[in-house]
């Protein structure tokens, strides 16, 4: 039972990939999926405080359970648009 993980912006550069797969085992939460990835891509460590999660394209709490086939996204603080303020 696996979940697909998508990485964007700084996170994808730190990990060196935009996509990964994580084995869910007995079941993981969105936050635990991130922890599992940190084991594989150590540069991702320590960002827990700033990352939000999305499961299947919707914002989800870190404790949100992830099911097989779900798509989990790690969302760094967004910064669309052009002007700063």
């Amino acid at each position: 039972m696996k979940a697909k993980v998508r990485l964007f912006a700084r996170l994808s550069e730190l990990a060196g990939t935009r996509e990964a797969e994580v084995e869910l085992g007995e079941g993981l939460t969105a936050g635990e999926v991130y922890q599992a990835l940190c084991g594989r891509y150590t540069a991702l460590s320590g960002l827990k405080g700033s990352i939000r999660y999305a499961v299947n394209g919707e914002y989800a709490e870190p404790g949100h359970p992830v099911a097989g086939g779900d798509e989990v996204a790690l969302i760094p603080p967004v910064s669309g648009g052009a002007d700063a303020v």
Partner: protein
Amino acid sequence: MLFEITSAALDPQRLIDHVRKDESGAVALFSGVVRNENLGRRVLYLEYDAYPEMAERVMREIAEEAMGRWPITDVAMQHRTGRLKIGETSLVVAVSAPHRKEAFEACHALVDRFKEVVPVWKKEVWEGGEEWIEGEAVRHE
């Protein structure tokens, strides 16, 4: 309603035409343009990344929130991805309404909200360096 993440050049006129309805007397539009300076640094270009499927869904959600809050008739938004030069348009938000006050208020609020929740990111590239710009780490759901 129209929500698009695209690598092509944005088209404000198309968004104006899209939101205009026979009952709307006002269209307010915001165009976010890449500028040559930020925090005192001379910007060479910006690079935008996005989670397109989710971004289009979140744009629709914030547009529906705005339609519930103001008497407006329609909303359209486009954000561009990839490398953008100074002067190129990264974001366009258009709102139509019977009256201008609501069109302006809703358009401004939608641009603010867009920057809080729509999964799009920009990297600033300047002479000798680059940095992913990160907004406030807000949690809104």
